């Protein structure tokens, strides 16, 4: 993917650019808002990473300007201010996702992957059915089957599986799952994601040899469905 990084802090910029290059992406960097907007409107990027506070033109204004010009490139906003109101403001101004500094590179990569090529599964006739590999989840009847066999899940486990099925072949990090399944914008000390995931996994895998949910070490979880 071609990714534009607009970030004024040189260390963060290089860290992100280097990581993305190592992951096989083409990273273009820009040190301030005005230059960033110029590059974003000029080049064809698959995604843009924008810092919220930038010299010249701040991140929010940059995103607003891009969206106003009809540009729909997925945007991930980075910020050192992680208040609830700031997050909402960022998303309302047109960013697709919001990541609070400091962050792990794996988190950034997973989120970039998640916002690119969205929406994912929208089978029009079966919009209430999420189907990946041999797993079928019915959002209306709230049932789950694996290879035709019924699996009984608790509500949180069901929501967790639904989120993973909505993003097949993509790494979902612990923080992303906390945000989307639990609506927690804080990090609990206990391993609630791990606990619920291991319960979900044991229920899904009962009677099967193949693990339905893949654990990506140091990054998160993924359903491959192969």
């Amino acid at each position: 993917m071609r990714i534009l990084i607009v970030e004024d802090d040189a260390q963060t910029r290089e860290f992100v650019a280097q990581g993305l290059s190592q992951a096989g992406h083409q990273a273009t960097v820009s040190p301030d808002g005005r230059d960033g907007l110029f590059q974003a409107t000029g080049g064809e990027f698959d995604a843009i990473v924008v810092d919220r506070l930038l010299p010249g033109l701040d991140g929010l204004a940059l995103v607003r300007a891009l969206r106003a010009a009809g540009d729909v490139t997925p945007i991930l906003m980075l910020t050192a201010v992680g208040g609830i109101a700031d997050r909402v403001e960022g998303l309302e101004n047109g960013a697709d996702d919001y990541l609070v500094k400091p962050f792990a590179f794996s988190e950034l990569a997973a989120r970039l992957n998640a916002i690119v090529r969205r929406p994912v599964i929208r089978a029009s006739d079966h919009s209430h059915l999420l189907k990946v590999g041999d797993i079928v989840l019915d959002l209306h009847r709230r049932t789950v089957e694996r290879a035709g066999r019924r699996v009984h899940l608790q509500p949180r486990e069901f929501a967790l599986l639904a989120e993973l099925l909505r993003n097949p072949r993509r790494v979902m990090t612990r923080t992303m799952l906390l945000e989307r399944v639990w609506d927690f914008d804080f990090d609990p000390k206990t391993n609630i994601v791990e606990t619920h995931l291991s319960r979900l996994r044991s229920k899904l895998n009962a009677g099967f040899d193949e693990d339905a949910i893949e654990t990506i070490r140091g990054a998160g979880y993924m359903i491959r469905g192969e």
Partner: protein
Amino acid sequence: MMLLRLWRSTFGSVAIVAIAFALATVCIGVVSYVVTHEALEEQLDHRVAIESGALSADAREGGLTSVARAIRLRGDARTSSSLDYLLIGSGGQPIAGTVTPLTPIGNGYEELFRFRRGDHIGVGQSLTTQVPGGRLVVIADRRDLDEIDRTLESLVAGALAAMLALGIAAAALIGWLTRRRLARIDATAQAIIAGDLGRRVARDGSGSEFDRLAATLNRMLDRISALMDNLRQVSSDVAHDLRTPLTRLCNQLERAACEDGDTGRMLAIQAARDQADELLEIFAAILRIAEVEGLAERRALKPIDLSDLLEEMVETYGPDFEASDRRLVSDIAPGLLVRGDRRLLAQAVSNLLENALRHTPVGTTAKLSSLTRGQWTVVELEDDGPGVPADASDRIFQRFARAETSRTTPGHGLGLALVRAVAVGHGGDAVLSRWEDGFGVRMRLPTAV
């Protein structure tokens, strides 16, 4: 503009009031002067008219000679307040009189009739009447009237001067007293600005407005110093509590630098990263508390289904309790509505549940209950663990407060501080409901209607 500035000062306002009083005195003086003067003039006219009437009657009966005799008789018996007379023949020649006229003789009343009597040159009110064979002039000397006028004038002038002098003196005195009293407050304020934060305004106990102002200022200063103490305490707590993890981080990085093997180095780096994560977590918690404390004025809170949220929390944490050989039970009334922020309430409840997981022995049962009592909805988490010492119960909601017994378990002492901040930010509060034979925290939140 100048007048406005003058009016603002105590001296100026008192002076202006004094001047107003002086002007009022002058007005009253002038009015009484005019009234008295007119009344006296009228009285003189009246005397002159009566006397003229009497002498005219004499003239009609006894002729001019009789009048001349009467005038002479009156002239011999005159006193200082007697009237003066003049009888003139039809040719204008004087026949008899007590004075020599200096003003041509007209007809009727004359306000300022100048005359001479011996050495005295006077001004009087005169009435000239026609009598058979001549004219009769009766004159009342204005000397007495003028004297009374002068007396009145000097009285008014004296009163004006006294009022002005008194007013200016009062203004100066009151201004000086006010300045002197304010100077005490000013001196205290200057001392506080200079850094003597413990100084307070001295009170005289009189209950006067200055005394009350001093009392109010002192209360304000007490409040400010309490807040500053709190801030100082928090800052020093933050600094103190961050020193330990930062020292550990340094040590781990040093160890990583010394490690020879790749595996050992990786492990040391991982440990350092975990340590850094913990530091970031502490910062996130501190910032969160600060954010929540400013919650009420910043955002409109929406009604949320608390029952739903709490059931979700029980389901979320149930497995962790089970996995650690503890029990989580619940007693949540259905359909509870509160006005609030769902995520913050989730975090507060999550902090309570995690405390129960972390600080209780294996086998403990925790109970999350919630119900509405009138305008308050109560959320309570209780456990049957060992509780905390009574002396710790006072400080447990403060930042970085940790019971001695929990020193060895992980955590940074910010969990309950956030719980209270969230409750207070929602317009409620959080208190300990139990600290012996178990531990319980009760949050009160305003019920949504």
